[in-house]
């Protein structure tokens, strides 16, 4: 079962799911994956590198276009989801679960306050300001 209720969302359509107190999974939302269309290539940084909140960390290529991936939080990458790199279609099929991209150790959990909860994200999508 997907845990969309527990996730935090950015206006760049990325989600954060806290696994422990300071370890989180990062991925893209279903809205993002639906809009990208069939994804053919995902480029992620190496584990051990750092990401910064709202800054680019990778690229995603679909049959339509190449798009940037922006990290919703700052931290150090503990693990990348290699199966998404090998089989990008996972991102289209299961963006909230099997399609997670990075496992990150958070630098500052207070950054989560800059993100939206599910309800706020859904009304953000409704507003059409994305």
């Amino acid at each position, binding site marked *: 079962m997907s845990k969309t209720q527990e996730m935090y969302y950015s206006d760049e359509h990325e989600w954060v799911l806290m696994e422990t107190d300071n370890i989180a999974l990062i991925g893209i939302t279903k809205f993002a994956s639906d809009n990208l269309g069939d*994804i053919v290539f995902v480029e992620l940084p190496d584990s051990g590198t750092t990401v910064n909140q709202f800054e680019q960390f990778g690229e995603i290529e*679909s*049959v339509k*276009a190449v798009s940037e991936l922006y990290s919703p939080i700052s931290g150090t990458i503990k693990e990348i989801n290699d199966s998404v790199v090998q089989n990008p279609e996972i991102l289209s099929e299961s963006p909230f679960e099997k399609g997670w991209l990075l496992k990150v150790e958070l630098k500052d959990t207070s950054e989560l306050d800059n993100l939206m909860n599910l309800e706020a994200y859904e009304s953000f999508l409704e507003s059409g300001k994305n």
Partner: protein
Amino acid sequence: MNSHQIPNEHHIKQQSLIRKLLMDRSQPGRIGAHIPQSDVPKQQQLPNKYLRKELPLPEVSESEIVRYFSQLSQFNFSIDHNFYPLGSCTMKYNPKINDEIASLPGLSEIHPLQPEESIQGALKIIFELQNLLAEITGFDSTSLAPMAGAEAELAGMLITRSFHKNNGDTHKTKILITDSAHGTNPASAVMAGFDVISIPSDKNGNTDIEALKAAINDDLAGLMLTQPSTLGLFDTNIIEICKRVKDAGGILYGDGANLNALLGRIKPGELGFDILHSNLHKTFTQPHGGGGPGAGAIMVSKKLTPYLPSPIVQYSKDEDFYSIYTPKKSIGRMGGFHGNFGALVRAYSYIKTLGKEGIDQISKNAVINANYIKSNLEEYFELPIKRICMHEVVFSASNFKKHNGIKALDISKRLIDYGIHPPTMYFPLIIDEALMIEPTETESKETLDYFISSMIKIASEAKQDPELLRNAPHNTPNSRLDEALAARKPNLRWQKKD
């Protein structure tokens, strides 16, 4: 076969025969030509270790190979087949006289390393084309060296960089680009060593002046602007944009991809642009489906003339002689020799055939045709920015996506069943589910009416029978292609089966 007919077994068999690759048609011993017996003693040409053991050649008869290539050519689609409204690409009809002229032996059988005195005619064509383009666009000088639009953009950015460097302004490192621009703009600026800042469009599709003001500092090297924009709209803020960029010491670069909309009406050089490139293969006709060959002319104002890429052709009146030279502060060469010479000849032939009056007529008809399509389709397809358009019109399929689950892609694929090439989709990126239609000036009212009625039919199919669109095209040798699979696991050539 019409779209509702279910293909029968016999038809499928015929289709799979037509789709066989040449190597798969091969039969051992079958032959298409008889080569006379060699009367020269057989000799080993290469040492054995360099010879490949497996180098199969197809064994087919002459009629089979002729049919194979004829069938392949029929799978193709070009402007010579039917309407090709690919926005931002200006797929206008390419007059056949241009090909006639370009294949004259005096132009097609010469070599760029020949002595100048033996190619005076070719150099004269380049010289006159340089002048014609400068005149048409309102600039001081032209270089025809770049091989295509993106290379001309790079040349323009390298000129901008050299200009600032020469003036000691090495702090000018920033290029502003609107968010509706072609992706090649930021790529060219970055390749030339600049940092790129994106400027949003306002609700009318113009460059957002407030955002522009905020982004302009002393480090401004220049701004790249497509006029009219890729939304098919004339940026009515142009005078203000020009003033602000100039006041900050920046260079105003014009992406001339949409020059077709302005020909004979507005000279970008007089509007205030410092540099403009023109995709000669689009605006001045050259068959370019499938990516080439192109030709990118670059026109500049007086202060930038010394920086043009070489070669430039000059004329000496006293000696009545055309020769090649490199401007004083030239950024250098963009490639070997004189660019794509054949494409230059076609552009020259096109301009000379039409004359001034004909050139003036181009933009008029192109803009009228696009607006005819806009007014006939706007009640069926959402028009995100409601303005009179220039040479192309951008619709959005977002309403169909919301209510019928039909995307711009599905509409485009269904158009193929009506014998029409799909328009540009999903560009510009700032329009959701964009469908960008550029009819060009060469289409008749009958063709436009057929396109309009096809689109109206598709709009009603989208509501009544969305599956028909989702599985389209139905009338082509291949139905919906799996583009994702093709990108992930490309299968590009025949391989011997073990």
